[in-house]
Structure formats: structure tokens, C-alpha cells
């Protein structure tokens, strides 16, 4: 009865196993690269709305990507989406806590707390916005204004309302998935979403309708 394999046969099996592992690892890396590329823009915008700071938003995305790649890259690709959302929310919450402590220290030391998203004196907030590929400068300007209005209104919402609204409304997460990503109950998600929507409607609806009417004229 054969008890095992040795010599060139075993070496060939080991080599084949190594090659298969290597190929799997490369496939996995390519899949992860593809996944991250598909979520990076939205993740950046989500973080930017939360922080109103380009560098902080990039740091948050970088941190979330690193955590996903280091800890969960070997999970099924289907799990990456919910995991990445949960990690991003966790990193944003950490940023908020750190920022709150930093501001308390600034106030304690007699300085002025940092105002997120505060424009430099004389700086037009629209200048910082991106030039889109739209050929019509008028349309482009209106789109940029709509974006700026929405960003500002979203930024004024409490963090939980803001992120619940974005995850439900933009990312299309279900109430259950949003609750998991945010680490809160489903009832809480519904309440936050409803309040956010009410606040945004009150702030934006008239402005946007007015713009639409101007467009029609």
C-alpha cells in the first residue's frame, strides 16, 4: 500500500500548488483592485461631505482601503462592498471624534476652532470645484452651484443623518445594510433618513425649483 509520494512527483505537485496559489493571489489582487477602483470616487465624496476637507477625505479613503486590503482581502468579493461601507463609516466616526477633541483643545488654548469647509478669505468656493467635460459653461455653472448647495446642506446635517441619507439615497443600501454599516438599529436608520430628507427638502427644494424655472425661461 503506498504511504506517500516522494521525489520529482511531489516536487511537481508542490510546484503546481504554488503556481495555483500564486495565480489565485494575483486574481484576487486584480479583483480587489477592480473593486476599489469602482468605489473610490463615491467613498471620497462621502468622506468629503463629512469632513469638508480634501486631505482628510483622502486620508479616510486611504485608511479604509488599507484596512479592507489587509484584513478582508481573502473574503469573498461579494462581501467587500458591505465591509468597505462599514469600515469607511468607522473611519469617518474616528475622524469626527479626533476632530472634536482637537477643537476642544484649540478652544481651551484660546484659539478659534477649525471651521470645516470654511473658504479662505476672498476665495470663491466654486473656483475649487471641478471643471466638468460639459461644453456649456452656463449649464456647468448651474451644476456646480447645485453641487455646492447640496454639499453645504448635507454638511450641515448631523453626521448620522448625513451618512444614513447618503448610504440609502446614493449608495442604494437597504435599511438593514445601512444599519449594519452604521452600527445602529433599523428604526434609527429610518428616523435619521426621514429627518435628513425633511431638512434637505426645506433647504434645497425652493432653490432648485427656482433654478429649474430659470432654465426653462
Amino acid at each position, binding site marked *: 500500500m503506498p504511504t506517500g509520494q516522494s521525489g520529482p512527483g511531489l516536487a511537481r505537485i508542490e510546484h503546481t500548488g504554488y503556481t495555483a496559489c500564486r495565480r489565485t493571489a494575483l486574481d484576487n489582487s486584480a479583483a480587489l483592485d477592480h473593486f476599489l477602483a469602482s468605489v*473610490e470616487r463615491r467613498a471620497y465624496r462621502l468622506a468629503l461631505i463629512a469632513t469638508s476637507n480634501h486631505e482628510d477625505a483622502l486620508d479616510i479613503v486611504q485608511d479604509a482601503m488599507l484596512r479592507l486590503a489587509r484584513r478582508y482581502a481573502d473574503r469573498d468579493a461579494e462581501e467587500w462592498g458591505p465591509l468597505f461601507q462599514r469600515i469607511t463609516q468607522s473611519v469617518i466616526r474616528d475622524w469626527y471624534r479626533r476632530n472634536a477633541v482637537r477643537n476642544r483643545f484649540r478652544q481651551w488654548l484660546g484659539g478659534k476652532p477649525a471651521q470645516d469647509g470654511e473658504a479662505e478669505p476672498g476665495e470663491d468656493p466654486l473656483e475649487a470645484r471641478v471643471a466638468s467635460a460639459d461644453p456649456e459653461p452656463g449649464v456647468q455653472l448651474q451644476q456646480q452651484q*447645485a453641487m455646492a448647495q447640496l454639499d453645504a446642506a448635507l454638511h450641515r446635517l448631523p453626521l448620522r443623518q448625513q451618512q444614513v441619507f447618503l448610504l440609502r439615497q446614493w449608495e442604494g443600501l437597504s435599511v438593514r445594510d445601512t444599519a449594519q454599516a452604521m452600527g445602529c438599529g433599523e428604526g434609527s436608520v429610518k428616523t435619521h433618513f426621514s429627518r435628513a430628507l425633511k431638512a434637505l427638502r426645506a433647504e434645497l427644494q425652493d432653490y432648485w425649483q427656482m433654478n429649474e424655472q430659470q432654465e426653462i425661461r
Partner: protein
Amino acid sequence: MSKPEHKDPFLQQVHSTLERSAQTLDDATLRELRQARYTALEARQRRPAWLLPMGGLAAAATVAVFSVSLWLAAPQPGVNEQLPLEDLALLEDSESLEFYEDLDFYLWLDDEQQDAG
């Protein structure tokens, strides 16, 4: 993740505005995001596969060392067992606490009175 379909014009506008904002990021930001992605992928590749179970082993070893330390550091029966209760009794009564804080003064006063007597 399924993309939401909105019948509400307001929500439609919010969604399209957010979509547009993500699709019109400037080149510098896109470069930085790409760099962040590469950094994450490299960090993942730098970790050898054999290290994966090592994380679990390290965590188990830490828990074991912590448990043994707690067990060894536990007070022996009969030694100092009353101290925490005494402390609690002290803290319960604010007047007693003040008395204990000024104990040196009362001892000195007592000595003085005895000397005078």
C-alpha cells in the same frame, strides 16, 4: 448594491447631483485616489500568506499571558482582603473623610494637650 430608482423628483435630483459630483472629480484627486489604491494593494501583497494564521496565534498567546498574569497577581486569601471595604467605608462618609485627611493635625493636637496637661 442595487441603485435606487426614484419617483420623487427631488430625490432624483439629489441622486443625479451626487453622481455627477463623483464623476467630475479633478485629475489631481483621481491620481491621489489611484495612489491610495495602489498603496493598499501593495500593503496587502507585502504580507506573506503564512502570516495569516500567525495573527490568530499571537492573539491567543496574548490572552493566555494576560490570564496567567491576572491569576498570579490575584491576592492571596486573608491578605489585604479588608482594604477595599475599608476604603469604601471611608469614601461613603464625607465627614469621616475630612477627619482622616486631618488626622496628623488631630494627633499633634492630642500630643500638645497631653504635654500641657
